[in-house]
């Protein structure tokens, strides 16, 4: 038995394959991450919902092809990444993207983080930082934004991100580096 099997790595993938049998449970488990990724990428609630539904419909139709070469989460996120990319490339929808660009704002989300233990000044600073990161992530090129969201919002490992994006780990690192540099410049940390 190899080290991977001994560490339970392969066992985890095998259990993922079984997990697909209960597709409703798969949806319940991964729906929030897919919707969140779609929402942060396209910044349109209705489009994000449609993309999320499409993602799980694709997963349902393609579940027979799932070979447990990655986790179910990585597999589903790969579908989501492709759908979001196709959505962004759809020029017809670009019009709606522009039209609704101002509709969604993360400010309300910052307000939801209101913590009674911190001062109102500290809260304002935090909300400004959140808004700055939100704005920067929206202006990043597609691959940088995708890598950034998967890493820092979905907490995915570099190898998982590489599998989800269909890229090599080194390429993911480059995209992440550029995204982080842009965020730091906006936050005033990068000279």
């Amino acid at each position: 038995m190899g080290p991977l099997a001994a560490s339970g790595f392969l066992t985890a993938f095998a259990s993922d394959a079984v997990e697909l049998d209960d597709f409703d449970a798969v949806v319940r488990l991964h729906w929030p991450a897919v919707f969140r990724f779609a929402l942060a990428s396209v910044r349109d609630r209705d489009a994000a919902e449609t993309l999320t539904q499409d993602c799980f419909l694709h997963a349902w139709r393609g579940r027979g092809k799932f070979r447990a070469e990655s986790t179910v989460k990585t597999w589903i996120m790969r579908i989501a990444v492709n759908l979001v990319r196709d959505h962004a490339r759809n020029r017809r929808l670009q019009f709606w993207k522009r039209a609704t660009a101002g509709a969604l704002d993360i400010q309300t989300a910052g307000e939801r983080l209101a913590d009674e233990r911190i001062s109102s000044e500290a809260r304002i600073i935090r909300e400004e930082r959140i808004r700055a990161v939100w704005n920067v992530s929206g202006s990043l090129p597609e691959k940088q934004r995708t890598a950034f969201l998967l890493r820092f919002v979905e907490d995915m490992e570099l190898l998982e991100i590489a599998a989800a994006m269909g890229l090599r780990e080194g390429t993911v690192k480059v995209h992440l580096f550029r995204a982080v540099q842009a965020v730091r410049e906006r936050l005033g940390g990068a000279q």
Partner: protein
Amino acid sequence: MSGHLSSREISEWASGTRPPEAENHLHKCGECREELIRLHGALSDFRDSLRNWSAAESPAPRPIWRTESPHRTHRLRWALVAMAMLVLLAIPVYRARERPRPVDTSAEDTVLLEQIDANVSRTVPATMEPLTGLVSWSSTSPAASGKSLPKR
């Protein structure tokens, strides 16, 4: 490593590239560590706010995949194929039925030919036949015998 981590090294560290020299430096240098903690804090706040916001915006999943049973899809597909085959088979049969059949006119032809034969074999046209009763066309007729017809 002298001084502090460069801006590039800090971004690389945050992106997942973590060489041992940088790690050693971060153990010793509070300023660089502070910079990374500040960045990490901003990214964590961003993640938490996005998660909260998304959770509030997220609609309940509509299980549209349940309406698409693979067995039912296969059955429908086979039904469509069977229907197409039936239509393809029915077309030549329908065309063959619709084609005008040759009418059997042999009996009518026979009657017509008999009529033609009868007409051809007449010694006088049919319209003149009543006259034949008045006039004898035999060799004993007055004209034939050189006798004149009686005067009226």
